[in-house]
C-alpha cells in the first residue's frame, strides 16, 4: 500500500511535471495534517497545553490530533528535558514511528540541554535523533511554537521523494 517505497528505489525523475505536481500535492497534504506524538516530559508541557488550548489553537494548523501510538504519528514533538535515563526511550519511540516522520525540539532543554549542563541531562536531542526544527525559549511562547510549526511546514513543502525513508536513528545502544 505504501507508495513511497515504490518510487524511491528508481533514480528520481528530476523535475518532470508529473512527479513534481504529485509531489507538491502530497507535500501539501502532509503539511496540513500532522498527527502529533507529544513526547511531553517537563515544564514545556504546560506551554504545550496552552498551545493546544483555546487561545493559540494548534488544531487550526491541523496538527492537534495527539496520536499516542508511534505507528500513527508523524510529528514527534519532544517537549521538555530529556535525561540520560529517558534517552533510550526517546530513541526507541523514534525508531517505532512510521516513515515520513519529523522531529521538533520544543524548548531550550530539548534543543541544547538548557541550563542543566550536568551529569543527568542529554545536551540536546540532536545528539540522539535527527531534528527538523529547533524552538528556543524556556518555555517558548505559544507564538514561537506556531512560528516553528510554520517553519516546519515550509520545510515539508520543499521535500522530495528521495528524502524518504530516513531509516532508524543513527545512534547505537551503548551496552
Amino acid at each position, binding site marked *: 500500500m505504501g507508495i513511497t517505497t515504490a518510487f524511491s528505489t528508481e533514480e528520481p525523475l528530476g523535475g518532470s511535471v508529473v512527479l513534481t505536481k504529485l509531489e507538491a500535492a502530497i507535500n501539501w497534504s502532509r503539511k496540513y495534517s500532522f498527527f502529533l506524538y507529544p513526547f511531553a516530559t517537563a515544564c514545556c508541557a504546560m506551554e504545550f497545553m496552552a498551545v493546544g488550548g483555546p487561545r493559540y489553537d494548534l488544531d487550526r494548523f491541523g496538527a492537534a490530533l495527539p496520536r499516542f501510538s508511534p505507528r500513527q504519528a508523524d510529528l514527534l514533538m519532544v517537549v521538555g528535558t530529556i535525561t540520560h535515563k529517558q534517552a533510550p526511550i526517546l530513541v526507541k519511540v523514534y525508531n517505532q514511528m512510521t516513515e515520513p516522520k519529523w522531529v521538533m525540539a520544543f524548548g531550550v532543554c530539548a534543543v541544547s540541554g538548557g541550563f542543566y549542563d*550536568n*551529569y543527568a541531562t542529554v545536551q540536546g536531542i540532536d545528539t540522539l535523533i535527527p531534528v527538523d526544527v529547533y524552538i528556543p525559549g524556556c518555555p517558548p511562547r505559544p507564538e514561537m511554537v506556531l512560528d516553528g510549526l510554520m517553519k516546519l511546514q515550509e520545510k515539508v513543502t520543499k521535500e522530495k521523494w528521495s528524502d524518504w525513508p530516513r531509516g532508524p536513528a543513527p545512534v547505537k545502544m551503548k551496552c
Partner: protein
Amino acid sequence: MSTNVTLDKLSRQFPRSVVETHTHRGDATAIVRKDEILAICRFLRDDPELAYDFMMDLTAVDYLGKEPRFEVVYHLYSLSKNQRVRIKARVPEADCTIDSIVSIWVAADWFEREVFDLYGIIFNGHPNLKRLLLYEGFEGHPLRKDYPLKKRQPLIGPLN
C-alpha cells in the same frame, strides 16, 4: 540547653547519645549519635507528649573535609502539637551505614532510597535499597562534593 520541650525530653531520655541541641533561627535541632537513631525515632513518635507522627523530610549533607563527613538529617512534625524538630546524625565516610527507620514511618522508604542513590549512605534493614532516581548502570553517587558536575555516563552514546 534550650527551652524547647522536645529537646529537653529527648536529652533527658537519651543522655548518652544526644551530643548537642540548639534552636538556631527558631528550628529545634538535636545532633545524635547514629547508632541509637531507631530508638530515638520510635520514642519521638510514640511518646504521647511529643507524638511526632509525620516524617516530613529525610536527607543527607556532605561536609567534605570535615570528619565525620556525612550528616543524615531528619525533619519531623507533630500534627497534634503543631511542632517541628530536626534530628541530625553524623555518619563517617569509612563506615557509611545507618539504621533505616522504614519500620517507624512508611514514608521513609523512598527518601532513604534517594539518599542512598545520591550520597551512597547504606540504610541497614531497608526492604529494597536500590537506586531510585538514577539508572542501574550509573557508577558513583553524584551529590557527593567530589563527584565532578559534568561527568556523564550516557546510556545511549551522543551522536557527534
